[in-house]
């Protein structure tokens, strides 16, 4: 699907990738996120090729280095908002020894959900759920934050809020932010923009 993709990003970069459905942008995101190994070529993050790692190490690598935000927020319905944010901290070595809960509360405060920490996902709106997903993605202070259509299921206003929040949090964290989206409007808010077409990645 991807034929000629070469991309080097540095901490602090905020990148958007747009393209039509089936162009391969989500595939690129999954390859970047160490979820789907490429058939050829390599991916390196912090001088590590995750696809050379064993299953256990790969899982720990994702846990520590990468944060994900999906179009469908994928929250655990049985857990509260706070617990959803804490989910990645339960496994592997925490980046914040002893302070996961505080950090989760701080993140929820930053995404404007400090009054919803004990709520269940079913009690939240779509935008709120996505904000929880963003907070969860950032809980382990990842080097790389990957967002797959983060505003795809949201209305205009909620999408705007999420976009602003993502950029704000990224700015504070100094991580690499990669967002794939259909939305030209969202893509336009990012300093670095790419377009994916027919398996090729082209900088706009």
């Amino acid at each position: 699907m991807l034929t000629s993709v070469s991309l080097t990003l540095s901490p602090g970069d905020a990148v958007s990738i747009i393209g039509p459905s089936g162009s391969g942008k989500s595939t690129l995101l999954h390859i970047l996120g160490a979820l789907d190994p490429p058939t050829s070529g390599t991916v390196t993050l912090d001088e590590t090729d995750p696809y050379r790692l064993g299953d256990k190490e790969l899982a720990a690598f994702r846990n520590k280095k990468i944060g994900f935000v999906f179009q469908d927020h994928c929250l655990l319905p049985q857990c509260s908002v706070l617990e959803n944010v804490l989910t990645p901290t339960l496994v592997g070595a925490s980046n914040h020894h002893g302070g996961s809960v505080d950090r989760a509360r701080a993140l929820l405060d930053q995404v404007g959900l400090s009054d919803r920490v004990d709520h269940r996902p079913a009690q939240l709106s779509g935008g709120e759920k996505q904000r929880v997903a963003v907070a969860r993605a950032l809980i382990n202070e990842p080097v790389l934050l990957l967002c797959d259509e983060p505003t795809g299921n949201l209305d205009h206003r909620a999408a705007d809020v999420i976009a602003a929040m993502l950029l704000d949090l990224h700015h504070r964290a100094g991580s690499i932010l990669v967002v794939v989206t259909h939305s030209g409007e969202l893509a336009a808010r990012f300093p670095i923009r790419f377009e994916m077409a027919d398996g090729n990645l082209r900088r706009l």
Partner: protein
Amino acid sequence: MHFSTLVRRNLTYFWRTNLAVVLGFATAVAVLAGALLVGDSVRASLRELFIGRIGATDFAVTSTGFFRQKLGDDLASKTEFDEAVGGYCPLIALSGLVIDEQSGHRASSVQLYGVDDSFWRFNSVEGFTVGDRDIILSPDLVSELGSAAGRTILLRVEKPSAIPAGSLHGRKEDLSRTIRLTQQNGPSRTSLLSFSLRPQQGPTRSAFVSIARLQKDLDLAGKSNLLLLSRKAGGSSRKVDRYLRSLIEKELGETFSLEDLGIKLRPLDQKRGVALESDSAFVSDSIYQSARAAGDGISGISVRPILSYLANSIKLGDREIPYSIVSSLNSEEMEVTTHDYGHGQGPTGRSLSEEDLKLPPIVLNEWASNDLGARREDVVTLEYYRWQDEGRLETEKAKFRVEGIVPMTEEFLDRDLVPDYPGITESQNIGDWDPPFPVDLQRVRPRDEDYWHKYKTAPKAFVPLELTEKLWSTRFGKYTSLRIVDTRRAPQEYLEEFRKALREKLDPFVAGLAVNSVRSEGDQASRGATDFGEYFVYFSFFLVIAALLLATVFFRVGIEQRLREIGLLRAVGYNTADVRSLFLREGVLLGGLGGAIGIVGAVGYGALIMYGLRTWWVGAVGTTLLTLKIQPLSMLLGIFSGVGAAFLCIVWTIRSLAQASPREMLAGNLEAAFRKRPGTASRFSRVGSPSTLGILLLLVGGGLLLGSVTGRIGDTGGFFGGGMSLLAALLCFEYAWLKRPQKNVIHGHGWWPVVRLGFRNAAHRPGRSALCIALIASAAFIIVAVDSFRRDDRAGELDRRSGTGGYPLAAESLLPLYHDPNTPDGREALNLFERPGLDLSKLTFMRFRVRKGDDASCLNLYQPRDPRILAPEDDFIKGGRFSFQTTEAQDVEERTNPWLMLNRNYGEGIVPVVADANSLTYVLHHKVGDEIELAAKSGPVKLRVVGALADSIFQGELLMSERNFLRLFPDIGGYSFFLIDAPGENWGSVSAALEDELSEFGFDVVSASEKLASFHKVENTYISTFQALGGLGLVLGTIGLGAVLLRNVLERRRELALLRAVGYDQSHLAWMVIAENAFLVSCGLAIGMICAIVAILPAIGSRGGHLPVVSLPLLALVLVVGLTASVAATMASLRAPLIPALRAE
């Protein structure tokens, strides 16, 4: 597209879920119908077994004595009888003991049949004959003895005697006769060799010999005691059966002869008339009454009762006459006699006064008077033996005043006043006497022998009849003979007239004859004491429930899986009813398909259970002859019940669709779609929260436990009810706990927070999780609680309150013992002498009279119609051993010793009895206070159950007092059942010594605890069966739990994929899923076990703190199966590709 097309498409597209639903329903139907098939099969097998064993027999004529062998021929000469009855054959049926001479192997309680060729022809076996010196054994007996054709078999058989052994002249020793025979092969139809008229599924010990041989060796020429009858082809309804039985009774009533009832009419001379005598040497009251009635109907005839007795001595001063017959005179004869030969002032037709009884009159004959030197007014003393019912021969004395002396004339030298007493009356000399009681022949003088030579049994003295009745009458009858006299005629002139009149007045059925509807009664008995269908429905209860719950869960999962589809249908215009109709149709088809598959499963399940009954659980049924018989009616009943239950589950499941929100369904939001709208609270929630209900149930349980501890409620009801209430309460709390808002935040890192996440997952669907926990908890409760009913054979072996009464040994004898082995005389009579290292005089025997009947214990699968009855002697009753579960005790004394109730007077026609509680409930289907009707010889009697023994060795019988027993069954003498107290612990030597010394009686000693254990084995086997099937239900529930978990995992594959995306590795996911499943299984097991232990605390206490251990491996198995299922679910989750899951594809 038609609606039906949509249904078809749905069924095939979601085939995996639907297959699970179909299999769940199929299992429920299979188990339910299969269990009913088991009931049918046991009934049909028992019937088949019984029918095979009775051959062509439909009816049987039996007798307490012996009747003419040609009675059948006489009956057949009657037209009406001949038209109804197809065949008949006379037999002699006796109990015996056989010994294979070569091996020495012996078998007691053998049913011996003396047959002629007519028996084989009657059963359609042509050309077979039992030789005069041959014996044919049933296959079971051959197998038990290890014998073969050509071997010498010693047959020890009861020697019937018409004279009751319980009377002075009845023989109490040498009761059997040994016959040497050669074993031969029987006819090829071996089922006939297991011939038995008594329904019993166990091995049959039957033996066949020539009837002529038995008649010859047992002095029964021309006699038989069993007449088999078969009906001519025709209907076999109960109505027809009743008609035929009444016809046979009518014909028998017209055909029987006095000889068939053991009555003899002997013409004497004109003055003495006709002597009526009985083979038993006693004229029973009923015969006397009939004879009087017959005499009253013939002009000029008088009936005079006579009682003659043997006096050991007649003494006057230092003179005595040994061994003299004393006979009775009625008041009129006494008056005439004393007037003529006394001083003319004897009693004149009046009863003896109190004064007379102090020194009653006696009339001596001249020989006696001279021998004693007695004159009128002298006081003579009579010494005589009295046989006491309790087994002692006592010498009693009575003083008489000489009232008269009669001459040695023919009138007073009537040697026919005495019936035949074997060993005495046929003797040529007194010195040749061989009576069944001790005589000192050295006392016999030449002049006594002279008297005997001249006058034989002519009485030497006469006493008033009224007095002889008081002194010498027995329960077998008051008189030894009757005299029927018409002084105007020669006896031959009215003999036949009287015979005819007597026949008309006699009721042959009161006198001992009986007609039994063998086939019909056996058919009734085949319906069984235990409804195995019902039992196996109970036993399979958890299998059915587990299967239905699983099917329901999967059906619901299927609905939830198609939530968006339902939302879409609603969006495009389907109303709620349309959607429900769609799912109902699918459900009906799935249920129907499940039912169809269940039919095959039912046969398989039924066959499996029957196989189990023949093999693993053979201890419960005691036969390997049970086979599967398919009865369409039960099959249909099972199928309809199973499918009906399935439909109810479907309707219950789809009812929730009515309230589901189409918008949320379209969004695939399960929680939101089924969230209760305001104002639509369920009835349950309106009543109260689960916690409130739990508290209420806890209070109820606490109340029951308190009631039990304070003795207001029985232990079983209190603790079991308390345990059940506690179980329900804990399940309510568990549900409330699962539903509660989660306030503790899962945080930290490592395996524990992941495990906690697994626990949290279990709380995600509280209803589904609570259902799984409830299923496992209930099954665990039943398995552990039921296990507490498992009998411990080691407990309380010598405890007087235990099921053995503290008696180490129990014994039964083929022939009754009349002598009391507790007395030196009795031991001497029974040859129970001291052995080296073994003092048999230190044994204490509790003796029981036995009236044979059906085994009322759980060892007999047939319904007992005429239970065996035991009657303990008074010493046993006073001992107050054993424990009672329930009694009708009215005062402190009876409450202390409930056996005393057996002697309470309940009024005319009601006899108190005691039974074992288990037999009473599960076999006889009665309870304390009920009355059981019994057909006694004297007419129907009501047996009132006044007490139920707790877990005793008396499971096969009813117990009544000896006094009532002797009143109801006067013909049954001696003691045949014994409980033996033996000091020390060398019971094996005691058993061997007793069996050896009393082998003539077929004495069989067993350990009382082993006897109890044989009953326990049956109960424990039932418990094992229940546990095995309950456990199977539990395993099915656990596997279902795994399947539900797998479904949960699949439903949550996006969540799991996300967790993998954020860094969870395989071990994290495995921990999480296993924790969830282990939580559910452990909660279920823990709740079930805790409540069960509360419920069985009394049982644990009685076992000295032992917990039920048999159920623990089963529960461990459940845990292993549950965890294995969760591992499988984890593996499935890990196999799911990550990216599609993340994309929710």
